[in-house]
């Protein structure tokens, strides 16, 4: 009886292994097909009609523009420099904004007095369309790095702040009480109990926050900048170069994807203590 069960289980595992491979192939196959259909339709629709190329761009033209940027360089300098400038602004702002968001969020989530005092200010600041602050920052801090970093900080801060705030408020009271009874000071309890517990919430906000960081950097460059992907897009738009706009977007997509991958790695590392409990699919 036992041997029969074991044998059956063994076959089942092998089969589900093959099944997993087939499934993966199917998923990737459909993904490629979707891409081919969309790009193919686009290519065929626009064709070599020069008026349509100016309006919509065309996949083959976008590839050509990318090649040109890589080999010859762009109108505002080498492509590598543009990516570096934008990334520098986005990352710097992202780091500062995230740290500020975590610090303020945890502080206000733990200290009632702070929440009461600063709550209304935060709500007001959050409700205004912050992207407009870009103009203010460009006027105040000039066309260089600082104005973009400021804009990114403002965009990143709120998302992280609200998640950290909520995370700090949802910490299991027993965990804190237990740590305090075991001898933890208030500060130790905050660092070793509240912070890790809120990390689940904070890390979730980082995905969205990095998207906002890229938006902030690009829009900042749009409003007033000398270098960067935003400037590249603006220049392309100014010269009716739809292919250039699309090409810059492809680059941003690649950057965002890489960042997303890194954040997911970080998430897995920080939250590896968690039991696997997701009931829905991973993205």
């Amino acid at each position, binding site marked *: 009886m036992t041997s029969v069960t074991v044998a059956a289980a063994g076959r089942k595992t092998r089969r589900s292994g093959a099944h997993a491979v087939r499934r993966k192939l199917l998923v990737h196959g459909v993904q490629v097909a979707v891409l081919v259909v969309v790009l193919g339709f686009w290519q065929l629709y626009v064709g070599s009609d020069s008026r349509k190329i100016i309006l919509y761009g065309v996949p083959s033209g976008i590839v050509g523009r990318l090649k040109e940027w890589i080999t010859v360089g762009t109108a505002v300098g080498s492509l590598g420099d543009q990516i570096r400038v934008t990334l520098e602004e986005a990352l710097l702002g992202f780091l500062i904004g995230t740290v500020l968001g975590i610090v303020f969020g945890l502080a206000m989530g733990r200290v009632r007095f702070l929440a009461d005092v600063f709550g209304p200010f935060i709500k007001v600041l959050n409700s205004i369309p912050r992207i407009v602050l870009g103009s203010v920052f460009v006027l105040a801090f000039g066309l260089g790095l600082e104005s973009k970093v400021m804009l990114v900080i403002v965009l990143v801060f709120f998302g992280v702040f609200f998640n950290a705030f909520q995370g700090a408020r949802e910490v299991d009271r027993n965990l804190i009480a*237990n740590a305090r009874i075991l001898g*933890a000071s208030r500060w130790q309890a905050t660092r070793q109990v509240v912070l890790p517990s809120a990390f689940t919430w904070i890390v979730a906000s980082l995905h969205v926050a990095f998207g906002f960081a890229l938006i902030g950097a690009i829009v900042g460059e749009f409003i007033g900048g000398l270098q960067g992907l935003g400037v590249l897009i603006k220049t392309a738009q100014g010269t009716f170069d739809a292919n250039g706009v699309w090409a810059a977007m492809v680059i941003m997509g690649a950057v965002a994807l890489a960042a997303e991958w890194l954040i997911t790695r970080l998430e897995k590392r920080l939250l590896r*203590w*968690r039991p696997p409990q997701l009931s829905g699919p991973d993205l």
Partner: protein
Amino acid sequence: MRKDFRSPAGEIYTALRDVDLTVGAGEFCAVVGPTGCGKSTTLTLVSGMERATAGWVRVAGQDVSGITKGVGFMFQTDAILPWKNVLENVAAGPRYRGVDKRTAYADARDWIRRVGLAGFEDRYPHQLSGGMRKRVALAQNLINEPRILLMDEPFSALDVQTRALMSNELLGLWDLTHPAVVFVTHDLEEAIALADKVVVMTAGPGGTVKAEFPIDLPRPRVVQEIRFEPEFVDLYHRVWETLRAEVDIAYSRTQSPAGVTR
């Protein structure tokens, strides 16, 4: 002592009234009573997590203000940190107090062995069974060598067999450092099997001590078997007589809408 809670609506709820309870050094005291009688509140007052509204709580002659020193607390639900493994969890107390890592971890390994978890040092809490998590909590408290160990229905979430096993081990571990224990439970059998003294509380709100029963059963005891002893049965009858009236009162209060339940 007396403890009032103010509800968000501003009403005052008296959880405890005129509670007078003394637990001697190294004494194992079990507290039983119907739901909502303020058993758990008593523990939070001793631990210093809450302050008494009137009266005083003293531990080793010192008035309690802020978290009591030299106290351990086992919660009804798990309170070990889910993002730390067993070793880090058990070593947490010494680490908080500034003991260096090597000493704290060596100490923690000792206690992990004593509670029977050797080999599980690098597991995370979610990889352990309910009983094993209780062992971690026990080791985490005992490593601090508390003078008083407060236990709030610590084994109520466990199945009956695991619970009896854990009770037995608790007695064995208690013998090592011999702290005073205040063990809150609703299970009279468990209370008598473990304790030197069983305290019965009256139904809440405004619960107070109704009676104290010394339990002079010989030690060491085997929790699973002691309940068949004639002395045990006799004690059980006597304590139950006292407790039953309160359980009835508590039950009737949950039935009437005027009764305040927690």
